[in-house]
């Protein structure tokens, strides 16, 4: 009970409801009694805390009411009443939006980065594999010039003008006894003048009669007055398609000398499914373009045209049927009797070296000057 009375006194003191006399006495007591002073201080603090707490509670209550009334005001504006709590995924999204964004961008970056770098690595191979290489030979000009120079030093004959070397070379072969030859259109592309020369050393100037860029064929005619005709052609032209796996061979000029190449017919269609060409497995080099492709019996079945870079043994030859088609579309001239000329084949029945011996005189190196 003593305690109660003290507290009552303290409360009255703090509340300011103490008469002046009693207050003075109490304050005097506070001076002398430190325990009482502590009690008073603590009590004051406690009461303050309680009161502030109460105020805070009522203020919060007030704010909540305001908030509710504000939401109530806003609600009718919305067409559908907004859900009191946002959907789980919305909360989740808002909380983790940044993290998700970073993660997403990192993963996107790595995916596309990988794709890109893989693409980068693959690209050169693809480009190459997609490239069709035309096999006309760019003659090593410098080498020849050097050789000419050395020759000039060894044989100092100042008057003699060295013949200008050909810029490009390919192969061509006779298709009629009266001086028509065929080669690839790309061989004579951009030519100023064209010369043909065979293994026997016969050298003629030729002019372009017809060019078919689509089938990559070109017909040339010998313009030389000294030309007296090839004589009878040893091979015939095959009009129908040859079979897969047939043994085929060619002669050509991938270098200064004539070169024999042998393989088999590996596909009935050419580069990127081109049905006007065969795929053949003969090792070919620049300069082989325009060479004749013959089968075992000595039938001409195609004209070597190119190969696919980056692919082993994928070379192409234009089918002879298309050569015949091109010829038939030529404007008729008096002395062009190709279709009738090679009636029978003098190559069949001979072994390969014999065939080549007969054949080689009809295969020319086509020299292109520009």
């Amino acid at each position: 009970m003593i305690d109660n009375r003290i507290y009552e006194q303290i409360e009255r003191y703090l509340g300011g409801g103490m008469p002046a006399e009693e207050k003075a006495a109490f304050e005097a007591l506070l001076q002398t009694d430190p325990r009482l002073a502590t009690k008073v201080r603590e009590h004051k603090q406690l009461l303050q805390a309680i009161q502030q707490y109460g105020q805070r509670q009522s203020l919060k209550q007030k704010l909540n009411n305001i908030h509710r009334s504000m939401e109530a005001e806003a609600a009718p504006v919305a067409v559908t009443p907004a859900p009191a709590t946002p959907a789980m995924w919305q909360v989740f999204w808002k909380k983790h939006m940044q993290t998700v964004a970073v993660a997403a961008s990192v993963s996107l970056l790595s995916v596309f980065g990988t794709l890109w770098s893989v693409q980068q690595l693959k690209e050169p191979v693809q480009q190459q594999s997609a490239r069709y290489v035309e096999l006309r030979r760019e003659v090593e000009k410098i080498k020849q010039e050097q050789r000419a120079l050395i020759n000039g030093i060894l044989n100092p004959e100042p008057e003699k003008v060295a013949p200008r070397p050909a810029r490009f070379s390919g192969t061509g072969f006779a298709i009629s006894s009266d001086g028509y030859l065929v080669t690839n259109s790309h061989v004579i592309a951009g030519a100023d003048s064209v010369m043909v020369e065979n293994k026997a050393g016969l050298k003629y100037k030729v002019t372009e009669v017809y060019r078919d860029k689509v089938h990559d064929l070109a017909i040339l005619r010998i313009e030389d007055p000294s030309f007296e005709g090839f004589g009878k052609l040893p091979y015939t032209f095959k009009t129908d398609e040859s079979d897969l796996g047939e043994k085929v061979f060619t002669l050509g000029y991938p270098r200064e000398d004539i070169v024999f190449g042998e393989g088999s017919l590996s596909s009935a269609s050419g580069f990127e499914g081109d049905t006007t060409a065969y795929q053949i497995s003969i090792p070919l080099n620049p300069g082989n373009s325009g060479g004749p492709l013959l089968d075992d019996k000595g039938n001409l079945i195609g004209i070597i045209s190119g190969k696919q870079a980056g692919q082993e043994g994928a070379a192409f030859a234009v089918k002879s049927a298309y050569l015949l088609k091109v010829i038939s579309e030529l404007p008729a001239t008096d002395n062009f009797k190709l279709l009738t000329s090679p009636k029978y084949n003098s190559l069949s029945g001979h072994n390969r070296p014999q065939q080549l011996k007969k054949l080689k005189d009809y295969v020319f190196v086509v020299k292109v000057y520009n």
Partner: protein
Amino acid sequence: MKNSLYGTDEAIIRGIREDDERALAYMYKLYFPMISHFIMSNSGTDDEAKDIYQEGVIVFYEKIKDNSLELSCQIKTYLYSVCRRLWLKRLAEKGRYAVKMNDAEEYLPMEEDVQQHEENERQFGIMAEALAQLGEPCRSLLEDYYLNMQNMQEITEKFGYTNSDTAKNQKYKCLQRLKKMFFATYKPEI
């Protein structure tokens, strides 16, 4: 509620000082969208926006009531700065450090005010806990007497004590217990 009535910051402050609830409500509604937008665009939710905004308003309100606020800026800026500070702290507590805040407004550093507020919050938290532990009827009794300002006579009748002395006695016992619990955890930071 006429907007023109509280058209200026001074009018709002005067209103709050005079315990005009409409002034408080007006201000509350005026600035909530700003804070809500700020919180939501800095990975917060609707509820968190409400919490933070109310805390901010409380800081402001108590400053006004204290007469200790020397408002050197607009109410808008003050509220924004306090809420921004509070939200940064909240984020830090959640272990998520916002590297960069999406700020829509200019703001002032509000260290002191926010710290004061947090100290108060701590005290209130302890008080709330102490009161909760106190249990009935002590809690209601103390709340009625100290918060609702009922006199001992009313309390005696409400709680069915035989006379007001018993009620007083009971009240002191309760207060004593509350005091013990309160000061057991609360050490005022000096």
